[in-house]
């Protein structure tokens, strides 16, 4: 059996790659899939913190690549979901510590034991990004509805295409319906008009994400969280389910959970 390798990337930093990786991982694992989250952001690791697994790290990705630990030793099982594992990045090294071939080999090994391998890419377009994209079967681009983030996402899509990967899919993160309504924020249509790729999820701005990130408890565990719900639906779409896109209506001050089909 061979798992699906999905790389989550963005170009611009701070748009929510790591949050997306953690939450999609949780969403898939809650559906009984075996998921390995791989932190490719060597030297600036975060995924362990967001998943609340920081204090369990003994070995990391670089230890595995350099032969100091076996893959199984470095993988950290999630305390809440036995199907979810994390392969943390090294914090004391940098991106040059891993070569593309080593990354491919590592992911190839993980594919034997997992249904999904989610690779959390570093920001940027340099070697770290290239390592993260090399093993990908699928690519998910995260952007926020800001011109700068969309510009970088466009650049990344070009690079993904040049690497001859299948057309990437898009998550629009931190959308603020009230601002869109006032015309102060790009809406989904504006973003898709530039990027022209398939949308796989829209995640509303949600203060709860900050709390959940700080606590190491991804929002996708909480069925009442608006952002967590959006990530859960992204997980379902990855599993091939046809889930309607939410229309976030801010008229009541809350996100009206009226689901309408958003015809694209």
């Amino acid at each position, binding site marked *: 059996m061979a798992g699906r390798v999905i790389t989550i990337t963005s170009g611009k930093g701070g748009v929510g790659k790591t949050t997306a990786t953690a939450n999609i991982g949780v969403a898939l694992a809650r559906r009984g899939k075996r998921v390995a989250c791989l932190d490719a952001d060597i030297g600036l690791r975060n995924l362990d913190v967001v998943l609340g697994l920081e204090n369990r790290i003994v070995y990391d990705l670089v230890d595995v690549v350099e032969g100091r630990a076996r893959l199984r030793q470095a993988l950290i099982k999630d305390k809440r979901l036995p199907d979810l594992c994390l392969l943390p990045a090294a914090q004391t090294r940098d991106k040059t510590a891993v070569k593309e071939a080593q990354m491919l080999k590592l992911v190839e090994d993980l594919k034997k034991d997992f249904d999904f391998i989610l690779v959390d890419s570093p920001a940027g377009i340099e070697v770290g990004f290239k390592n993260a994209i090399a093993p990908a079967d699928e690519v998910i681009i995260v952007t926020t509805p800001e011109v700068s983030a969309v510009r*970088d996402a466009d650049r990344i*899509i070009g*690079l993904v295409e040049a690497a001859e990967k299948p057309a990437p899919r898009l998550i629009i993160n931190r959308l603020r319906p009230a601002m869109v309504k006032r015309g102060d924020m790009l809406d989904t249509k504006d973003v898709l008009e530039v990027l*022209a790729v398939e949308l796989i999820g829209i995640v509303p701005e949600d203060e709860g994400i900050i709390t959940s990130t700080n606590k190491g408890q991804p929002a996708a565990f909480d069925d009442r969280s608006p952002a967590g719900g959006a990530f859960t639906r992204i997980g379902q779409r990855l599993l091939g389910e046809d889930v309607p896109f939410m229309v976030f209506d801010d008229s009541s001050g809350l996100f009206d959970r009226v689901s309408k089909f958003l015809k694209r």
Partner: protein
Amino acid sequence: MTPISFKGTREGIHISLGDQPWREIMDELGQQLVRPGAQSFFRGARVQLDTGARLLGVTELEELIALMAQHQMTLTSVIGEAETQDAFIKLRSALPAPPEILPAPPAEAEPPATDATALLIHRTIRSGQLIRHAGTIVVIGDVNPGAEVIAEKDILVWGKLRGVVHAGASGDASAMVGALYLAPTQLRIGSSIARAPDEKRAPVWSAEIARIRDGQIVVEPWNAA
């Protein structure tokens, strides 16, 4: 691994470099060029080079150009990353014209039409991508913000033009830019520069062309042209 590929086009030969290590590419290219029967295909050809995501420096391009020159081939355009393009531009201005092995045309002949043909690009040009060509460029797709298209003749975009374009890049003020949706970040023709108005204009889908009239860049509907 993607190997090198060759495609004969009306404009010449399109070579995609593939993703093998550089030495292997040069070796394979060298072999391909001397294969029996290859001489007639390659000899005197104008080459469009597609470097994909690979970054080529001045040294590598020089090596490539030298190899092509041995077969009387000329590199006319490069499609690829900005770094590679920069190296190409540096070489084009620094190097003498390709060695003249073919007899020079008689003086009264028409000016050489070598670089006047069009480059057709059938995809969206995304942020960070740069297309440069010695003739006209036709894009079927969008030119996104952050992308650049530079032609020595006209630029036509069958789609949304929102990046930076420069028509008549070698100083040709008669060049024009046309698009189905003309909203470039910056538009240059010859040595004139125009930029998008600071206030946002309601997006309209109507083919427009920009050209120079009385020393100014003027945008008008296509049908008025």
